[in-house]
């Protein structure tokens, strides 16, 4: 329609150059990121697997082998990339028998939420260990939940018995003040880190109350599934 003035012409040229530069840079950037991602993916997956494995072996002391399952709608399936639900890790001892199950629990701590993995032994109906996976508790105070040996000793055999109807825990897991522990289902808090200690107790109680009644019938399923694996 109208004639193109030299100024307009140079403007279009400038825009074209800008677009070209940005496109080129974005392509180089994309290429570099994809390359790194592909190269590091197996290493990262391996690191994550090792981290999970170490945590499982720590909370189920007898375990030498493990298998991940997912619980959803009361059904337990062997975990694959597509199965949804809560992750349940079954640990097996040297003889190949079920040594315990492990699952994640979460509760609000003093700073941010505390995520932990805990092991449960069906034979003694007790919690056999915890491992803090993520926490932002205050160094020197709240972070004692994974450094204080007396506190960790609480979880060597913390009772988590189901009641007669198998609908909930017989005695709720509860954190009591430092030095006031009298029952096997009580957790002796760390003095000076009461909020963090309570959070650990709450996380365990919430998760166990929900999970254990649902898992009690599934334990035989795990045993059967692991037997089938053996025969294969």
């Amino acid at each position, binding site marked *: 329609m109208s004639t193109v003035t030299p100024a307009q012409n140079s403007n279009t040229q400038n825009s074209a150059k800008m677009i070209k530069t940005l496109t080129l840079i974005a392509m*180089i950037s994309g290429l570099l990121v994809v390359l*790194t991602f592909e190269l590091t993916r197996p290493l990262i997956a391996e690191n994550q697997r090792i981290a999970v494995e170490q945590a499982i072996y720590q909370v189920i002391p007898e375990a030498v082998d493990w298998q991940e399952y997912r619980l959803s709608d009361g059904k337990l399936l062997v975990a694959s990339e597509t199965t949804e639900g809560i992750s349940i890790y079954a640990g097996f001892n040297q003889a190949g028998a079920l040594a315990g199950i492990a699952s994640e629990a979460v509760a609000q701590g003093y700073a941010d939420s505390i995520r932990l993995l805990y092991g449960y032994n069906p034979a003694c109906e007790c919690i056999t260990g915890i491992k803090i996976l993520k926490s932002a508790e205050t160094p020197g105070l709240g972070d004692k939940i994974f450094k204080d040996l007396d506190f960790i000793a609480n979880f060597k055999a913390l009772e988590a018995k189901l009641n007669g109807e198998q609908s909930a825990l017989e005695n709720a897991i509860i954190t009591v003040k430092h030095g006031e522990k009298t029952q096997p289902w009580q957790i002796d808090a760390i003095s000076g880190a009461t909020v963090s200690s309570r959070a650990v107790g709450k996380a365990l109680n919430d998760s166990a109350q929900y999970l254990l009644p649902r898992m009690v019938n599934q334990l035989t399923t795990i045993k059967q599934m692991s037997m089938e694996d053996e025969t294969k």
Partner: protein
Amino acid sequence: MSSRPRIKETPVTMDTFLKGIWEENPVFVMLLGMCPVLAVTNSTINALAMGIATTFVLLGSSALVSLLRRGIPKQVRIATYIIIIATFVTIVDYLIQAISLELYNALGAFIQLIVVNCMILGRAESYASRNNVTKSVVSALGMGAGFTIALLCLGTVREILGAGTLLGFPLFGADFEPWVVMILPPGGFFVLGSWLLIFALLKQRKTKMEELTRAH
């Protein structure tokens, strides 16, 4: 060809590298990138990892910016620099995950936040975009080393005082009561302040000495 004024290229000297460590130290002299300096220096290993990660990003982005400096139009230069920096930060992010998940969790969001470290953007804008690749790389190495040394200065002091350990090994007996405040955020400010004080005193003394020698 380029509309920008051509600066006469000076050759690469040892000074190009050393400037970043002493004279233009990004932390103690220019006070740049204070966020990671205060946040992740609660232990020596975190400080070292953060320093190396930042150096890698600085090195990669300086090299690429310098390589492409003639082709980048002035109007979109900041956007281009940010894309380049973000690319290298993402690479570092994956690499650290591949090396150690524990370290990755300890450094947390501060790895991703290297993108907005003003030291890196500052070097891209003020140095890499005006100098050739060799000079930019050497200068980036110097700046990175200066940044790492500064982080280590803070990290070591904070770990020794705040936890009584060095690189995780206990230094004192069981009777040592750690100054917990040192590994908490306030400790970062205390230690940074003390280091800045030492540097200021040193500088003051140096200028005084020079004046004295001139007077004589």
